[in-house]
């Protein structure tokens, strides 16, 4: 009961936030937090549940951004349609790239995803139709929900990002309880054992990867409509691939709360240090950010969720006594 009350209060707080805080910058920080929480949760599916460390998610972020921007520019298609087609596009690409790549494991797979991202980025940089290195200025449309453009206030972007995040949370929750999620985790635990149990591991890895790609591309589409300018160096950046992983790792891999918590902390840290110290021009902000990241990883290597769990462990133990081990 208390739990639901807390949930309701939080949701109410989040809904009221743009009304209480009208300044765009705090809203922008919240939007970034939602965006990266969402993409962290997306990465969580392939990296957390299925245990395949992908370091190339920016590929799908970029595909989503470009598909949406190009369809809008060339065919005047609503960004919402662009978003859906972008996700479809990302799924197709993820299957094509994933199929061969899932033959390799562990670090070889991680490096392969980086390599693929670099290849895709280079193709876009040299492809005139998509604007090459110059990138694309997204056409400015009248403000409306259908156009997914809002010029006077950030609040609509805020609510859309929040809505997308909630959907992705629900998807993750469902996954963690479903048969599919069970297969994913079996693959993570031991690929060979999973195969022996009759799980078609390539198939399930591909499903996980496609889900990750689709959600990440939604993030990219949103970014394109939010920033209204995209170019290969900003949407195919390795830093994006890395950040979605870091967000999940910081919070706790394979949990639903982890990426959300991770996003809150990492984004506030990097934005906060930049705003407070970035103007000095001596890179102090980034240095402090780096130090904090190291500190967290050494002090709390299992992720913050594990830490919270440990805090409550005495209580948890009591409960366990009365139950059969699960």
């Amino acid at each position, binding site marked *: 009961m208390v739990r639901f009350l807390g949930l309701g209060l939080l949701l109410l707080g989040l809904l009221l936030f743009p009304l209480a805080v009208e300044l765009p910058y705090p809203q922008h920080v919240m939007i970034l937090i939602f965006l990266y929480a969402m993409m962290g949760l997306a990465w969580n599916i392939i990296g957390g549940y299925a245990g395949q460390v992908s370091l190339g998610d920016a590929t799908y972020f970029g595909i989503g951004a470009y598909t949406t921007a190009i369809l809008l520019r060339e065919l005047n298609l609503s960004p919402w349609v662009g978003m859906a087609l972008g996700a479809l596009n990302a799924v197709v690409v993820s299957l094509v790239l994933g199929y061969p790549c899932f*033959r390799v494991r562990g670090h070889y797979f991680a*490096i392969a995803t*980086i390599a693929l991202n670099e290849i895709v980025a*280079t193709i876009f940089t040299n492809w005139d139709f998509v604007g090459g290195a110059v990138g694309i200025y997204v056409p400015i449309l009248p403000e409306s929900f259908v156009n997914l453009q809002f010029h006077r206030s950030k609040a609509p972007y805020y609510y859309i990002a929040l809505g997308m995040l909630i959907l992705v949370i629900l998807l993750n929750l469902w996954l963690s309880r479903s048969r599919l999620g069970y297969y994913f985790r079996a693959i993570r635990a031991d690929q060979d054992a999973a195969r022996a149990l009759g799980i078609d591991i390539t198939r399930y890895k591909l499903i996980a990867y496609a889900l990750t790609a689709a959600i990440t591309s939604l993030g990219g589409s949103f970014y394109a409509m939010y920033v209204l300018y995209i170019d290969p160096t900003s949407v195919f950046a390795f830093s994006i691939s890395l950040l979605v992983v870091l967000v999940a790792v910081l919070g706790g891999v394979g949990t639903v709360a982890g990426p959300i918590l991770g996003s809150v902390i990492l984004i506030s840290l990097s934005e906060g240090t930049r705003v407070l110290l970035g103007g000095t021009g001596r890179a102090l902000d*980034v*240095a402090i950010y780096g130090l904090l*990241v*190291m500190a967290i*990883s050494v002090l709390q*290597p299992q992720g913050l969720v594990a830490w919270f769990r440990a805090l409550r462990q005495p209580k948890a133990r009591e409960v366990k006594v009365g139950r059969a081990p699960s």
Partner: protein
Amino acid sequence: MTAELLIQVVVSGLLIGFVFALISVGLTLIFGVMDIVNFAHGEFLMLAMFTAFWLYALFGVDPLFSVLACGPLLFLVGVLTHKLLIKHILNAPMLAQIFCTFGLSVFLKSLAQFLWGPNFRSVTEPLLGGRIELFGVFFGLPQVTAALGAVAATGAVYLLIYRTELGRALQATSEDRQTAALMGIDTEKMFTLAWGIGAGCVGVAGALLAMFYYIYPEVGTIFALTSYVVVALGGFGSVTGALVGGLIIGLVQVVSGFFSPAFKMVVVYLVYLAVILIRPQGLFGRW
């Protein structure tokens, strides 16, 4: 394309390939023993290059000699990294280690900017400057020196790993740390050594590279990605693999750069992908 041009391109590719190899040997060593991809590897290289630069600028020591300082100094940096950071997360998931070395990389990069500013530096007149000409093919003397240094250093590491008692202990630790510990190997010492030697290799590479490359806080990033690909291509943990991988990548990069400069890195990555599809464990990897 004339024969001369072809030879020139191949020679250039091999020269840069040796440098890639030396940078990657350190990375593969740390990986092999620790099972950790060190994301701060490029920044180690940057630190070594700055050390070589300052020794040159302040005391007039040529990078050729500061190899003797950069190697040990980076050895120390590697040991410290292990003692202060990695040691505490040995049993944590591999991802926590990625997270940690990423933080280290960001920190070192910005520390360099904080201390030395964002400007480009370079060793303007290395002892072995200039170039030599052989049958119409040009060799940059610093590049040749760096390549020879890389061969020597890689050779030394190879002998250390495969021909000494210590090396065998390192190998055993990388095969299976539990069993190695049961056999009486001090694994903690091996881990420290792996970080020390791995970083030391990069120290040597940095000093050699300083002879002909510009130096600034972001310089590590340029080499880091290539060295990950080299290590993966050769097989994680294999010194031979790093050497061969470095040469292949150097050669591929320069040759494809001649025909299609914009796509030269694409060709490099395609070669990597092609290799791992045929051999999922890399050229010389064990698994």
